[in-house]
């Protein structure tokens, strides 16, 4: 149970564009992918997928396929066959909602034209596990595959569970991540009615003026391999999943525990799993949704779990520039964190200006910050919390310089 889990490839499609490097560079440059209060991923599907695959994939699956292609290319894998015994290569890709566009379109067809016109592809496209299945099929992965669905914690759960599958010796490698494409009017209306969405249309995590999240879409995929498997094939290691902690608030359908106790336990578990102390944490990629409740509760959780270190460590939110990618958020943010660790930089919480009472950590409001690590390999936490009270925290380590 103590195998190292290394990251050898990352891919992302986000409202800042196609590509993990694009996300990192544009985020650090202060660019935003949010326009008119929403954040869409812009891509031409035919550039990446053939007609058959494109029409057999809901948009969330298309996003996952494109991100996976990038991650596998970086890892140096062949597209149709993994470099390890394929029976020992898995695929764990989560989503918050799944193919809601396909589902709602099918329902419109049903109402307008009757059951005989509903596409036989409606179910296999909308099911939340469609992306995991599509990636396994396209890339010839015959090990464990499934889709964690834990709302906005799904991406982090996927990476955490994938790292467990490798650490336990069940898999030599796992393609892991999350995907979401939920820009359907029903989702906007429903999140809006919950008062979860920002009325101002601005994602301002941890700022006193924050008024809700901005909905985004996209996907993040990581190639995880056991340290031995990666070494055996001479792979370049980008970083490492060193710890994973998952807990439940068991408190409320949507609201986090006010004191952040559930999230704090997940942070402590992730650190303990990694054999690290609070003092070892060099950067926190926060869940930071820009909702009044999350950002206050998460701040308390960080103080409870990290003690004095919480006040020293830079804490920033990718959601300040791409909005909230729901079930893809944890995966995209893990990708962003690995690139940040690679560059030894804490990217900024873009737009953070006004301190809120009690939200007194270092939210990196003044642009990207060089990590002061004194030659050691930096460590970061990536937090994800989902409706339902699901908390998943990853401890990630960069690669030696």
């Amino acid at each position, binding site marked *: 149970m103590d195998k190292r889990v290394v990251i050898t490839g990352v891919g992302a499609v986000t409202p800042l564009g196609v590509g993990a490097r694009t996300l990192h560079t544009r985020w650090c440059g202060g660019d935003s992918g949010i326009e008119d209060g929403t954040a869409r991923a812009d891509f031409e599907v035919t550039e990446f997928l*053939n*007609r*058959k*695959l494109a*029409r*057999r994939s809901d948009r969330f699956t298309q996003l996952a396929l494109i991100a996976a292609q990038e991650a596998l290319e970086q890892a140096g894998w062949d597209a149709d066959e993994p470099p390890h015994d394929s029976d020992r290569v898995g695929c764990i890709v989560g989503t918050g909602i799944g193919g809601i566009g396909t589902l709602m379109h099918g329902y419109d067809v049903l109402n307008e034209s009757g059951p*005989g*016109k509903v*596409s*036989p*592809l409606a179910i*296999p496209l909308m099911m939340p596990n469609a992306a995991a299945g599509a990636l396994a099929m396209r890339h010839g992965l015959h090990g464990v595959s499934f889709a964690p669905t834990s709302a906005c914690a799904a991406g982090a759960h996927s990476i955490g569970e994938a790292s467990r599958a490798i650490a336990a010796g069940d898999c030599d490698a796992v393609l892991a991540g999350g995907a979401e494409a939920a820009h359907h009017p029903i989702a906007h209306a429903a999140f809006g009615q919950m008062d979860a969405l920002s009325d101002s249309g601005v994602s301002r995590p941890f700022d006193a003026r924050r008024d809700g999240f901005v909905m985004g879409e996209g996907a993040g995929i990581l190639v995880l391999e056991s340290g031995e498997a990666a070494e055996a094939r001479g792979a370049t290691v980008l970083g490492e999943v060193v710890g994973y902690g998952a807990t439940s608030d068991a408190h409320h359908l949507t609201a986090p525990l006010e004191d952040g106790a559930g999230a704090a336990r997940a942070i402590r578990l992730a650190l303990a799993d990694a054999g690290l102390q609070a003092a070892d944490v060099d950067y926190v990629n926060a869940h930071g949704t820009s909702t009044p409740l999350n950002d206050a509760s998460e701040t308390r959780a960080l103080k409870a779990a990290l003690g004095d270190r919480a006040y020293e460590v830079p804490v920033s939110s990718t959601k300040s520039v791409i909005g909230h990618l729901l079930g893809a958020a944890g995966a995209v943010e893990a990708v962003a964190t690995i690139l940040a660790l690679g560059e030894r930089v804490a990217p900024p919480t873009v737009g953070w200006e006004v301190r809120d009472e009690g939200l007194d950590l270092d939210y990196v409001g003044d642009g990207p910050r060089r990590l002061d690590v004194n030659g050691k390999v930096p460590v970061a936490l990536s937090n994800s919390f989902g409706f339902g009270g699901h908390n998943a925290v990853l401890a990630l380590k960069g690669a030696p310089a």
Partner: protein
Amino acid sequence: MSDTTITREAIQTRVAEALEEFGAEPSEITPDATFEALDVDSLDLVELGQIVQEDYGVELKGEDMPKLKTVGNAVDLIAERAGA
């Protein structure tokens, strides 16, 4: 379908269009081509059934599907049922 005559050629063309839309390579769509070779599966054939139901009022049933091995098989069955 009252005032237009359904021809076998028209059916052939419509089927080829549908298969192309499903992702089959246009140059490979010939009467002798098997659905397997074209990577057209049972889900595609259900969609084809919906199209010919709409266009020709012809029903392709679940029990028909296993018998349809080639593009020509499908065109023949549709033409027969449409009286083309």
